[in-house]
C-alpha cells in the first residue's frame, strides 16, 4: 500500500495541514498542487525580470515547514511549485535544506514544459477563440505544455526526495508515485485511469475533506478552521481509501467524495490528461469507517495523441471601482450611482472593451429574475471595465470614487483597483516536440 497526502490545493492554501499530515499521516508521499492556469503566465513575466525568480512565492515557507519532518519520516515531496522556473526552485530547495542541516537530500526539477519557442508564430489553431497562435503576436507571453507523470517517475526512480515541476497535469503529480511504486506500465490504461481518479480526488486538498462543502443546517462540517487535508491509501490495482488524520477538522464521506469527483469535470467517461483518457463514470464510493471512504472502479483508455498547451496573453487592463449604500432606499441610490458613472463614461469619452455595472447584494452574482425578490438593507455599486490602456483603467475606479462628493446621498467605503489582464487560451502540440527532462541538485 502507498500513502499519499495532499499538502495544498492551490497557491495560497493553508500551510499547517501539510505539517499535520506528515507528522501523523504515516505518509510515503506528500504532494503540493499550487499552480493555476494563469499563475504560470504571471510567473513567466517575473522570470523575465529576474532569471532566478519565477517559482511559487510560498515555496520557501512551505518547504521550511515540512522538509525537516519529511526527511525524518522519509516522506518524498512532489510539487508543481516550480511554476515558470523549476530549476531555480530546486536550487533554492537544496539551499534551504543545507541551511536546515538536511544533508544528502536529492532534489529534482522537471523541466521542458516551456514551449514558447515552438509556439511563436505557429499556425496551430486556438481552441477557445478561433484564429491561430501567430495571430496573438506580441501579446503572447507564455506557452506551457501539460506534461504527464513520466519525468516525475524518472526522478523518483533516480532517488529524488523532493521533485519540483512546472506545468504538469494536476492528477499526474499523484499518479507518478503510484506508477513508480507499483511498476504500472504506461499503457496500462485501466490502472492509470484509476490512479488519475485518486489524483483528481486529492488535488484540491481540503475540497474532499469538507472544504467547499458546508451549508449550515443542511450539510454540516465540523471544525473547518482546523480542516484536515486528505490522504489516500492506494493499493496495486488502483483502488483506494480516502481519509484524513484522526482528530483533524472536516469530514470525509460519500457526499464529499462525490462532489470532488465531479469537480471541474466535463464528460465523466472521458477525462483527458497527458497520461490517459480516464473514465470516472464507473467510480463507486463506499463508507468503510469514520472519515474513511473506499474508492472502487474507474478506468481508462489510450492517452490523447497530442498535449494541451496553455498560452498566456496580454489582454489590456481591468479597472474597477465600488461604493456602498445603506438603508431602505439603498438599491435606488445604488442604481442612480451606476447610471451616473455610465453617463460620466460618455461625457469623458471613455469607451472600454467591455463593462459591467452591478449592485453587489442584488445582481452581481445572481441573475436578475432571482434577485428581484428581496430588498437588501445595503448594497455595493460595482463598476468594472476592461480597457486597452492602464490610464483608461485608472479612470474607471476614479469615476466611482468621485461619487463620494458628486453622487447619491450616503455613499461610503469606495475602493478602486487596476490589474493587468493575462488571459489564457490553449492549443495542442505534437508529443515529440515536447521533451521533458530532469535536473538534479544535491545537498552536502
Amino acid at each position, binding site marked *: 500500500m502507498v500513502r499519499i497526502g495532499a499538502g495544498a490545493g492551490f497557491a495560497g492554501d493553508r500551510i499547517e495541514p501539510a505539517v499535520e499530515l506528515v507528522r501523523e499521516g504515516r505518509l510515503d508521499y506528500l504532494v503540493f498542487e499550487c499552480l493555476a492556469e494563469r499563475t504560470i503566465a504571471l510567473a513567466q513575466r517575473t522570470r523575465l525580470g529576474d532569471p532566478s525568480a519565477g517559482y511559487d512565492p510560498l515555496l520557501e515557507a512551505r518547504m521550511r515547514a515540512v522538509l525537516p519532518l519529511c526527511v525524518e519520516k522519509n516522506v518524498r515531496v512532489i510539487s508543481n511549485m516550480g511554476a515558470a522556473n523549476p530549476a531555480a526552485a530546486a536550487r533554492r530547495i537544496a539551499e534551504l535544506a543545507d541551511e536546515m542541516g538536511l544533508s544528502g537530500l536529492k532534489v529534482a526539477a522537471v523541466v521542458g514544459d516551456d514551449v514558447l519557442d515552438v509556439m511563436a508564430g505557429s499556425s496551430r489553431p486556438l481552441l477557445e477563440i478561433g484564429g491561430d497562435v501567430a495571430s496573438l503576436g506580441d501579446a503572447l507571453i507564455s506557452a506551457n505544455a501539460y506534461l504527464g507523470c513520466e519525468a516525475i517517475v524518472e526522478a523518483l526512480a533516480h532517488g529524488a526526495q523532493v521533485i519540483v515541476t512546472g506545468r504538469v497535469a494536476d492528477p499526474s503529480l499523484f499518479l507518478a508515485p503510484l506508477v513508480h511504486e507499483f511498476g504500472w506500465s504506461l499503457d496500462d490504461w485501466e490502472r492509470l485511469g484509476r490512479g488519475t481518479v485518486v489524483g483528481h480526488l486529492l488535488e484540491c486538498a481540503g475540497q474532499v475533506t469538507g472544504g467547499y462543502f458546508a451549508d449550515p443546517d443542511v450539510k454540516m462540517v465540523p471544525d473547518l478552521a482546523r480542516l484536515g487535508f486528505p490522504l489516500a491509501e492506494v493499493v496495486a490495482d488502483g483502488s483506494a481509501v480516502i481519509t484524513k488524520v484522526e482528530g483533524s477538522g472536516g469530514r470525509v464521506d460519500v457526499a464529499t467524495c462525490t462532489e470532488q469527483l465531479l469537480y471541474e469535470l466535463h464528460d465523466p467517461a472521458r477525462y483527458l490528461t497527458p497520461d490517459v483518457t480516464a473514465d470516472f463514470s464507473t467510480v*463507486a464510493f463506499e463508507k468503510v469507517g469514520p472519515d474513511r471512504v473506499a474508492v472502487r472502479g474507474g478506468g481508462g483508455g489510450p492517452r490523447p495523441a497530442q498535449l494541451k498547451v496553455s498560452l498566456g496573453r496580454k489582454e489590456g487592463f481591468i479597472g474597477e471601482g465600488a461604493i456602498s449604500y445603506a438603508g431602505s432606499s439603498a438599491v435606488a441610490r445604488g442604481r442612480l450611482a451606476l447610471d451616473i458613472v455610465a453617463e460620466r463614461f460618455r461625457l469623458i469619452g471613455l469607451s472600454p472593451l467591455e463593462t459591467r455595472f452591478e449592485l453587489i447584494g442584488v445582481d452581481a452574482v445572481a441573475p436578475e429574475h432571482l434577485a428581484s425578490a428581496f430588498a437588501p438593507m445595503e448594497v455595493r455599486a460595482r463598476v468594472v471595465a476592461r480597457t486597452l490602456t492602464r490610464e483608461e483603467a485608472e479612470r474607471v475606479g476614479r469615476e466611482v470614487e468621485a461619487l463620494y462628493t458628486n453622487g447619491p446621498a450616503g455613499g461610503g467605503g469606495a475602493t478602486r483597483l487596476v490589474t493587468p489582464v493575462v488571459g*489564457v487560451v490553449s492549443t495542442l502540440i505534437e508529443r515529440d516536440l515536447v521533451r521533458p527532462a530532469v535536473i538534479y541538485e544535491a545537498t552536502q
Partner: protein
Amino acid sequence: MRLRELAHARSGDKGDVSNISVIAYDTAGYERVRAVLTPERVKRHLGGIVRGEVRRYELPGLLALNFVLNGALGGGVTRSLALDAHGKCLSGLLLELDLTPEEPSR
C-alpha cells in the same frame, strides 16, 4: 419544492466553461431531479449567465447529474469582469431552482 431540498451541488471552472454537479440525497430524489432538470431548464434558470450550450451527463451510480455550461464564465476566469470569475456561486443559485413542473409552452 426547491432543488436544494433534494440535492447538493458543486461548481467548477475550466476556461470559459463551468460545470455544476447536482447530487441527489436519495434514489427517489435522483429520479425526480433527472425528470425535471433538463439542460434547457438549467440554462433558463441561470438567466443571462450562460451564453452557450448546456450539456447534461447522467451518473446514476452516484445519484448525480453533471451539467456542463459553455460560455458561462465571462470569457474565462483570467479575463472575466464578473465578481465571481470562477462561477463558484453558480451551484448555490442552481439549488434555488423551483422543481414544480412548468406550464407547457403555448
